[in-house]
């Protein structure tokens, strides 16, 4: 396997290929920076540009676009508190706070460095462990996935901040909102109430950009801020202890991303929430998360990248795309008549390793391109808000519309902007609502599929050992949650005064 990767590099590296990779990274970053345009949309927009190149050049340019788009999404999360996609939400929590403290450069730099670390580890992981681990991932059935979703949902407690009841309520509200539309298993309408527009349900992107983007602009308008940050920008690259903390968090996020990337159907958005939650739980100062902690940026970013990297294992070994982006890459490769499907590693190993090498080159190119540009991106936060605010609103409107060419999504983002603003004013945490919105449908789908398989017996969740382990771990984590006990004790102390 390791020689396969080296051969891949030999085929991929040439001055022309490197130029195409650079171009792809540049374009991907600039388009990915646009709020509401996540990596999948960015790849879709820029894909036609690769049509005139030979297959190797196409792949390497696509790799550049992919990494540029992912980094561009992180940029808006950090600088403007607008997640490009659901997986960028945890980055917003601390990244934007770092920007408001004049540390935008550090946040952007650690996002790029963390992504690079995850990409490097992912390429090595692929080389040595790939196809073997793909088989393990296939052992996961619906019951195991339900257990994993339940375990992931325990992150609600971590994201609830200072008020557990509000956080859990927001999470449950998110679960409910996700049920609007047609039930995918039965085709029955739920919570549609005769409104045709609701048949297709609420898309996560307008909800996201409303809750984060529009709400933040409204909040900033009320605060009458001159710009996101007013003052001299701090260091552009983290150093010393901050860098060390960021690097360790990146490594932890990488491990989480690589392990979870093997499982088809585990969305990157869930993975980044898990990474953030883990980082917060093991931290010596969990109460500082959400106030501008570098680990809160490094870990989710690395996990996101690691998840995408590890997703190549089931993609190439079994022909199964694990994420929407992997599916798009698969489709892109098929457009160029390139062989994809199961046994790609074994029957067309040279091609598979060329793709893996190209992805790694794209990862390196991202670092080379964007670390010097960190200063430029960071200066965006100095733009007067009377210009930046309207631009953000305008891009949000276009971004929301572009998802399904529907004004309904525009209205959704505006209404959720109002909801998000009200939640911020009332001290309600927003992240649990998003987590519930993303996890709720997955949990339901696997719960019902499990019971389908067991003939209605709930014992399946304890009879399947992996599922049982996840559920027990989830319960333990809930009981161990510092939030739970500190709020109980605070309540008791408050009652006694």
């Amino acid at each position: 396997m390791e020689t396969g990767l080296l051969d891949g590099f030999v085929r991929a590296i040439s001055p022309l290929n490197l130029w195409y990779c650079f171009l792809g990274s540049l374009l991907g970053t600039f388009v990915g920076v646009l709020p509401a345009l996540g990596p999948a949309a960015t790849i879709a927009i820029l894909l036609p540009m690769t049509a005139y190149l030979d297959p190797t050049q196409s792949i390497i340019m696509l790799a550049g676009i992919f990494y540029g788009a992912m980094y561009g999404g992180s940029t808006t999360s950090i600088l403007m508190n607008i997640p490009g996609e659901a997986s960028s939400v945890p980055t917003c929590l601390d990244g934007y706070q770092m920007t408001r403290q004049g540390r935008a450069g550090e946040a952007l730099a650690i996002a790029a460095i963390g992504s690079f670390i995850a990409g490097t580890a992912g390429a090595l992981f692929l080389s040595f462990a790939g196809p073997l681990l793909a088989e393990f991932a296939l052992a996961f059935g619906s019951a195991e996935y339900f257990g994993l979703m339940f375990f992931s949902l325990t992150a609600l407690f971590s994201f609830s901040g200072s008020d557990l009841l509000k956080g859990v309520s927001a999470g449950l509200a998110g679960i409910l909102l996700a049920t609007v539309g047609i039930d995918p298993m039965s085709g029955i309408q739920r919570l549609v109430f005769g409104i045709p527009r609701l048949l297709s349900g609420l898309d996560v992107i307008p909800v996201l950009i409303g809750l984060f983007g529009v709400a933040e602009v409204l909040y900033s308008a009320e605060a009458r801020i001159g710009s996101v940050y007013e003052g001299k920008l701090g260091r552009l690259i983290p150093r010393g202890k901050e860098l060390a903390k960021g690097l360790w968090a990146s490594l932890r996020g990488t491990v989480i991303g690589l392990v979870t990337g093997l499982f088809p159907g585990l969305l990157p958005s869930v993975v980044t929430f898990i990474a953030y939650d883990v980082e917060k739980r093991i931290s010596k100062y969990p109460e500082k998360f959400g106030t501008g902690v570098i680990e809160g940026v490094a870990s989710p970013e690395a996990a996101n990248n690691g998840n995408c990297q590890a997703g190549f294992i089931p993609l190439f070994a079994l022909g199964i795309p694990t994420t929407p982006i992997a599916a798009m890459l698969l489709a892109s490769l098929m457009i160029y008549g390139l062989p994809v499907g199961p046994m790609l590693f074994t029957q067309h190993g040279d091609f598979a390793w060329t793709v893996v090498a190209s992805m790694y080159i794209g990862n390196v190119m991202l670092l080379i391109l964007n670390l010097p540009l960190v200063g430029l991106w960071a200066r965006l936060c100095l733009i007067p808000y009377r210009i930046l605010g309207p631009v953000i609103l305008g891009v949000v409107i276009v971004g929301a519309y572009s998802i399904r060419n529907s004004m309904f999504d525009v209205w959704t983002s505006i209404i959720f902007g109002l909801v998000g603003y009200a939640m911020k004013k009332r001290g309600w945490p927003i992240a649990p609502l998003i987590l519930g919105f993303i996890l709720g449908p997955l949990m339901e789908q696997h719960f019902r599929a499990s019971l389908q398989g067991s003939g209605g017996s709930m014992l399946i969740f304890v009879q399947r050992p992996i599922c049982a382990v996840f559920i027990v771990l989830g319960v333990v984590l809930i009981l161990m949650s510092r939030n739970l006990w500190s709020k109980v004790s605070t309540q008791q102390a408050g009652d006694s005064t």
Partner: protein
Amino acid sequence: MNRKGVSGIAMTLEIILLVMATAGIYEGARLSKTALLFVDPVGPGWYLFFMSCLLFVCGIALLLRRFIRRKAAEREVSFSLHQGPAGRALLLLFLYAFAITYLGYLIASAIFFILVQRIFGERSWVRCAVTGVSITGCFYFAFSYLASLPLP
């Protein structure tokens, strides 16, 4: 704003939650009767019903907590959306979304960008106009021609 006003506005989110939960309970109960018709033993209603019940309990707990801890509620920051720039910006957003349908993207956007800058603190109408039209033009060019994205 008096204390009753503050508490009333503060309860809005809790009321919204209870309305959502009630709708979910009703819908879930209605759909759960059809479970037997489907291959999966749960059907489309039970999960919705269960989560809605949990949300209802949380909503009631939030309301009860608010009444029990009245002193904390009275200290909360008043939420007077209609009086501030946030309210005006939100109203302008709603009008913008309406205007797109009837005036088209270019005209509606130009008007929106000009007016929203005033809300964000720009004092000069000339600068608002120049910047607003420029932003509209850039958006149109960038999204329509460069990115080939459909505009509203």
